[in-house]
């Protein structure tokens, strides 16, 4: 079993949160792609379809789809199903506004490819003040 790995990047929104990683290499759609009651991905062609990000650390490329992206994650926060934190690689206005209104720590521009390092189930500590993601791999 290997020890924690630290990825460093740009912290967004601020704060610290911990949780299980939910990893996907596919960008996530907001409107039409997730449902905010349980924070589940509902896009039929998505590899995570049916899974919930509630309380997890969502590790993904970022946002795709319509301009309702931020509104969907905003609603998810209000309904208590938001992710604990977000780690993403591709900046655009949808993900930027989305992390802002979801009020969760987020990190981007990491010094290593997160998809090469993080697996679903790994424990993540996301420190948006220091711009760090500390990865404790799950025992395999």
């Amino acid at each position: 079993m290997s020890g924690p790995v630290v990825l460093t990047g740009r912290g967004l929104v601020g704060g610290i949160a911990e949780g299980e990683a939910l990893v996907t290499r596919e960008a996530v759609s907001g409107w039409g792609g997730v449902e905010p009651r349980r924070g589940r991905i509902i896009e039929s062609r998505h590899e995570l379809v049916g899974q919930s990000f509630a309380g997890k650390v969502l590790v993904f490329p970022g946002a795709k789809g319509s301009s309702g992206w931020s509104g969907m994650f905003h609603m998810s926060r209000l309904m208590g199903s938001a992710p604990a934190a977000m780690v993403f690689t591709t900046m655009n206005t949808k993900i930027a506004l989305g992390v802002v209104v979801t009020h969760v720590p987020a990190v981007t521009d990491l010094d290593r490819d997160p998809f090469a390092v993080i697996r679903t189930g790994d424990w993540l500590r996301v420190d948006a003040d220091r711009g760090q993601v500390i990865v404790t791999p799950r025992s395999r």
Partner: protein
Amino acid sequence: MRLTDGERAMLDGADGEAVAAAMDLLVRYGEVLGAERLVDTDNVCGANLFGSRHSLVCGSPTPDAAFSEHSLDAPRVLTIPPVRAQSYQLIGPMDTKHWQVQGLPQAEHDEIVASEKYSADHGIHLMNTCTPYQVGNVPVRGEHCAWMESSAVVYVNSVLGARTNVEGRESTGAAMLTGKIPYWGLHLEENRHGTHLVEVTTPVQSNRDWGLLGYWIGEQVQEEGIPVLDGITTTPDLVRLKHFGAAAASSGGVELYHVPGITAEARSVEEAFAGAAPRVRLRYGPDERRAAYERLNGTATDTSVDLVMIGCPHATLGQIRDVVRLLEGRRVHPDSELWVFTPRALRHIAEQNGYAQALEDAGAVLMSDTCPAIGQFLPKGTRVIATDSAKQVHYLPAIMNVQGWFGTLAECVDAAVTGTWQGVQP
């Protein structure tokens, strides 16, 4: 992010709490983006009509509370002043005239009507459409805007040379109150150059052709590209470009494209790439078109059509007249529905032209303000829809769990009249 003295004053409360909260949202947003500053905008299109879906979450809030939370992401309920910028309501959840066709209960109707009145009282122009450029909001080249609605963003960026990113409810709410938006992304000239060269080697002329081309390009380019079309030989019109952009913005995240000689910013392919080499070269020919057509029709097996939807994005008067003429002497099949969607301002003219009555006499309905995808409504028992819109056939099956056929307007009207889809691969 640098703030001007005026922006700093707004943030510090010089124009009241709501404006301060709006500036706070813009600053947080701008800092996540990494924007160096804000830019002035007097052209904001947002979505601030709230029904039960929003109010239930917040426990039936007052309109000020709904706007504070959903449109400003403010930490508490604020009194919202009349909006500063010229602001427009985009598409919403309800047709104020035909809401019963949507199956909405009276209480829902009343809630949305109240929400509309609140917007109106605050000076947000109730266009209630995904096509603001069809009802008077025609930005000029270089005009900095803050719009939601990806099909509208891609239209004004590309065809008119306006400058907007794909904004969200909260950023446009904040922009309405402040007249500011982060100076990032497509506001900057250097971010507007082409990335993907698309060599078009098959004729692209009809609405269907342009929809197929847009859909295929969106799939190729996804979220990170500005396509440049080479090989277009006929001049498209607003309807064709509207369908093209909506398709590309829904199968992928295209926010800007160039058709040299047609769209605003490129006279030639070289100019579209600002002299650089394309990052990606693509070719679109008969095979690609055929594949796009098959994918767009990929969810459908059952030819018995329950609903034909025309007007995604919202239809022009010309498109409405085309439907009326195709319906002449015919009626919608008893087992089908034909819904045509257009901005309410144009429905007003359509009514005076007799188009609305002609549609009604034939068993169709002219609807406004919403659409089946946005409002998530269909006729009871709908299993199969047909449409001439690549965007609508891309979304509806996924959102509403139905089958979708895609084809020409004539094929769609035939399907509404016969009840059976008989569209053919072009």
